């Protein structure tokens, strides 16, 4: 295809991506170097008719509006947004590691810093949910594959529901059930014999429930992919394994799993990347007191209606993007190799 035709065909698509994906990324990078204008304060002296004068400090809205109009991005701050208490918290880190405190104490004061708290949950979610969801998906695929033909359709239908559901809606549904007055929440209280047990009160329970939600909603994707992979397992290899006396377990271990391995790497990489963006469950479960994620931090900076903290949100965004890029590198290398193999 000539260059000109190619350009004509792909132009709208490239334009959309440049304007609304590339540009915002640059905008975020620039914005992260700025902080909001500090409030301009004026002192007004109010003198009453009876002689007493009081001074009052007020925010000068006119001057603020003028400042905002002149420099909407705020003041240039360099890397201050990255290093402050709400992000990398360099000073706090120095203090935590400088003092002679125990390991547990260090961890707990680290977990009090907003950024590290969010990072810890995000990474835990990523690296716990991904393997568990894949294992679940693989087991479902094996099980569904043994069903008689007629029952496969309905089983697949039911199995993909948790994946297709809107993440916010799915997490809301589960959070209602885990409410202390909902079915699971009440049962948990009864099982633990602790009438005060609730998501709000117990960080551990919050983490477990959100991770469970993650496995529940991510499992079906692995299931669908592995199920499709199972249909392409070479029958003659299976047959010869059987003739050679392989047990069912050995056939699974040495024929089916190696066959699905490339698929598994693909699923793992995609899911790691996607789970790093975990956001809706935090909102759905109202879990911010016990578990936050990087995406949620950005959202939280942006929703505070009176003073949206664009600089802070941008700094978190940039660090999130760096995280995604690190997770993305293996995918890129793989795609690169595939492409070169196809060309060669």
């Amino acid at each position, binding site marked *: *295809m000539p260059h000109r*035709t*190619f350009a004509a*065909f*792909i132009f709208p*698509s490239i334009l*959309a991506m440049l*304007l*609304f*994906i590339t540009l*915002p*990324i640059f*905008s975020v990078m620039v914005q992260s170097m700025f902080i909001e204008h500090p409030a301009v304060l004026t002192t007004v002296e109010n003198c009453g008719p009876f002689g007493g004068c009081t001074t009052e400090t007020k925010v000068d809205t006119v001057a603020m509006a003028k400042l905002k109009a002149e420099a*909407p991005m705020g003041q240039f701050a360099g890397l201050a947004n990255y290093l402050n208490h709400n992000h990398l918290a360099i000073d706090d880190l120095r203090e935590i590691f400088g003092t002679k405190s125990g390991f547990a104490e260090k961890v707990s004061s680290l977990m009090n810093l907003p950024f590290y708290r969010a990072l810890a949950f995000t990474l835990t979610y990523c690296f716990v949910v991904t393997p568990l969801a894949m294992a679940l998906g693989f*087991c479902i695929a094996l099980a569904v594959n*043994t069903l008689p033909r007629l029952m496969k*359709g309905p*089983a*697949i239908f039911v*199995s*993909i*529901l948790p994946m*297709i559901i*809107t993440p*916010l809606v799915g997490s809301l*549904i589960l959070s*209602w*059930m885990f*409410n202390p*007055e*909902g*079915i699971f929440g*009440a*049962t948990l209280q009864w099982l633990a014999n602790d009438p005060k047990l609730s998501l709000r009160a117990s960080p551990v329970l919050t983490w477990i429930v959100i991770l469970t939600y993650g496995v529940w909603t991510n499992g079906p994707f692995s299931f*669908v*992919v592995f*199920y*499709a992979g199972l249909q392409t397992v070479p029958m003659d290899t299976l047959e010869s394994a*059987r003739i050679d006396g392989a047990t*069912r377990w050995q056939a699974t271990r040495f024929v089916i799993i190696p066959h699905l391995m490339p*698929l598994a790497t*693909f*699923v793992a990489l*995609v899911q790691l*990347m996607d789970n*790093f963006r975990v*956001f*809706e469950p935090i909102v759905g479960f*109202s879990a911010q007191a016990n578990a936050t994620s990087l995406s949620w931090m*950005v959202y939280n900076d*942006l929703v505070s209606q009176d003073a949206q903290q*664009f600089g802070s949100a*941008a700094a978190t*965004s*940039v660090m*999130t993007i760096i995280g995604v890029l690190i*997770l*993305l590198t293996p*995918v890129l290398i793989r*795609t690169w190799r595939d492409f070169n193999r196809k060309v060669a």
Partner: protein
Amino acid sequence: MRRQPAGLRTLTTAFLTIWLIAAVFPFAWTVWGSFKVEADFFSRQTWWYAIEGLRTTQETGGPFTLGGYEGAWIKNEFWKPVINTLIVTLSVTGISLMVGTLGGYALARSGHRYAFWVLIAALVFRAMPHITLVSGYLLPFFQLNIWGFLPTTIIVLVAINQPFTLWMLHSFFLSIPKDLDESALVDGCTRFQAFRMVIIPVMWPGVITTGLFSFLLGYNDFAVTSMLLRQENQTMIPKIASFLGSIQNEGNVMFAVAAVVSATVPLFILVLFFQRQIVSGLTAGAVKG
């Protein structure tokens, strides 16, 4: 496969039963509960009330009530966000496909090295967390005075959706034999004519599958729609989120439950009719990718 030994078969059946219940029970429970009053669905005594509907009978005279739906749809005008969702998702799907088929076709037929780089860039773009992009939109959109309008949100969602659409349609067009459009070129068609007359008639299976995923992206989105739309033109999902803040305090959680069930029903219908396409779409991405 050989017949499974009895022990293994029991194990498989048990596991599958547990999974299927786990997959469907939360939905079934919430749909059932949405026809009860709050004192039943969030019962302080026992969840058995939610099944029997004791309080519902006491309060409304029957074991089922439409109170939640009435509150959501009539009192809180849930039909407005429903219409907005309809506009947003249909436009996003339509525009994504229009733009994406052209781009995907070009990528599949180019053969130049830069086509590969476009795909790699799309892969990187697909990985970007949506909320980080949103934090880049807000300030410029305020400045340009385009924040809060449906068309802005639609264009943004189309753009966010492009990387995935391009990949999917690119691999679909690769599966259509090159000879088909090339013979049209030999017969004197321009590239666009060949696309219009030869490719468009055969591309519908791939387009429908891709369209389903575009639809789901628009429908399920929370990050973009909640940040880029005003209260008045919000879509369903951010509306449900804002219900939580306002309604939970007033003791009307059932409105939110009814709204959630209402938002889930279209997805169920979608899966019911397009299960095959959804499954094949997911696997095409994975098996070929």
